């Protein structure tokens, strides 16, 4: 018992206390223990349910927000320049082995510059020279060490690709001849090439001079 027993003011009797202790040895029935402990658990759970009522919608909102953010991020990563990227030569869109690069360049020299050569009929001989140079370069690329191109970042090859010229130096010397060259490209149906040259023209000469 507590210190109240030490207090002489309180009328306790040790003999009565001992006799009571001797007698009072009943214990709580087990079925009551189960009932009460289950009630306590149930109450704690329902409280948690009540307290966490706002958690479920918040979790849904957070999950949806996260999904949207991931989708946007992935779409931005996979498609950095959507308009221009599709129209670029295949060599610029994906990294490839040096041998593949060489073959593709050779193929390109056979296909695309053919149209350019058509446009620049007066410079046919120079175009032929350029084509042979490209072939030689492609051949030398095939023999180049494997690490040479594979080490180059994809962005570099992409820039190389867009820096390809469709109008030669004489055509781009003045805006009129450059524009003629662009119009010729458009007539030939090479709209992407024309667009690239138009952009270069806009950069080289101020926009007010554009038609």
């Amino acid at each position, binding site marked *: 018992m507590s210190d*109240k027993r030490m207090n002489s003011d309180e009328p*306790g009797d040790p003999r*009565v206390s001992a*006799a009571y202790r001797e007698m009072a040895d*009943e214990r709580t029935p087990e079925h009551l223990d189960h*009932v009460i402990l289950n009630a306590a658990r149930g109450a704690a759970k329902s409280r948690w349910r009540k307290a966490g009522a706002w958690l479920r919608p918040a979790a849904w909102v957070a999950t949806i927000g996260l999904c949207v953010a991931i989708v946007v991020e992935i779409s931005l990563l996979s498609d950095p320049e959507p308009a221009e990227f599709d129209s670029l030569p295949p060599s610029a869109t994906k990294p490839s082995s040096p041998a593949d690069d060489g073959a593709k360049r050779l193929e390109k020299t056979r296909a695309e510059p053919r149209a350019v050569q058509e446009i620049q009929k007066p410079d046919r001989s120079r175009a032929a020279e350029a084509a042979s140079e490209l072939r030689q370069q492609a051949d030398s690329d095939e023999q180049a060490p494997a690490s040479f191109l594979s080490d180059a970042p994809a962005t570099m090859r992409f820039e190389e690709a867009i820096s390809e010229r469709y109008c030669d130096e004489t055509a781009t010397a003045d805006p009129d001849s450059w524009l003629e060259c662009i119009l010729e490209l458009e007539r030939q149906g090479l709209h992407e090439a024309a667009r690239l040259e138009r952009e270069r023209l806009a950069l080289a000469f101020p926009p007010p001079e554009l038609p």
Partner: protein
Amino acid sequence: MEHRPEDSALMLRYRDGDVAAFEILYRRHKDALFRYLLRLCRQRAAAEDVFQEVWGKIIKSRDNYRPTAKFTTFLYHVAHNCFIDHLRRNKRHGGAADIDPDSQPDGGDCPETLVEKSLARRKLDTALGSLPDEQRDVFLLYEEAGLSLDEIATITDCKRETAKSRLRYAIRKLRAALDEPPETT
């Protein structure tokens, strides 16, 4: 040395959702409270009902629980009020007691000692049962709950001197019952 968390701390932990804290608290107080109610109600079924009601109220009141007083005082205050409600509900509270004082005899004692103990139990139980409700209540709060006179006065809503007087009368009657010579047949 084993750390024994305070009752109030356990109740606060239960308020925050810790069911294990409630289990500790319950196991610490359940038997004393059950005996208190059993001797107050004098009927096992009624005591069990009130016991459930008391713990139900403790569980319900956990959100509003403030450790301003001892948890034991709070618990027995609730129990006392539940008993009063039980009395009001069952105004014909004069049914025969169904507590068997010999329900758990000590197995290791010799037959003479067992007989003596059984006799003392019966005498005390009879004397306790014959006490007025107020005196019995005060005696049980003093013996079973281990509360001080001030705490008993708070629970039973009376003055300290009144509680002291009730306790003194109760103890005097019980002592007299114990001193009574055994009946000779």
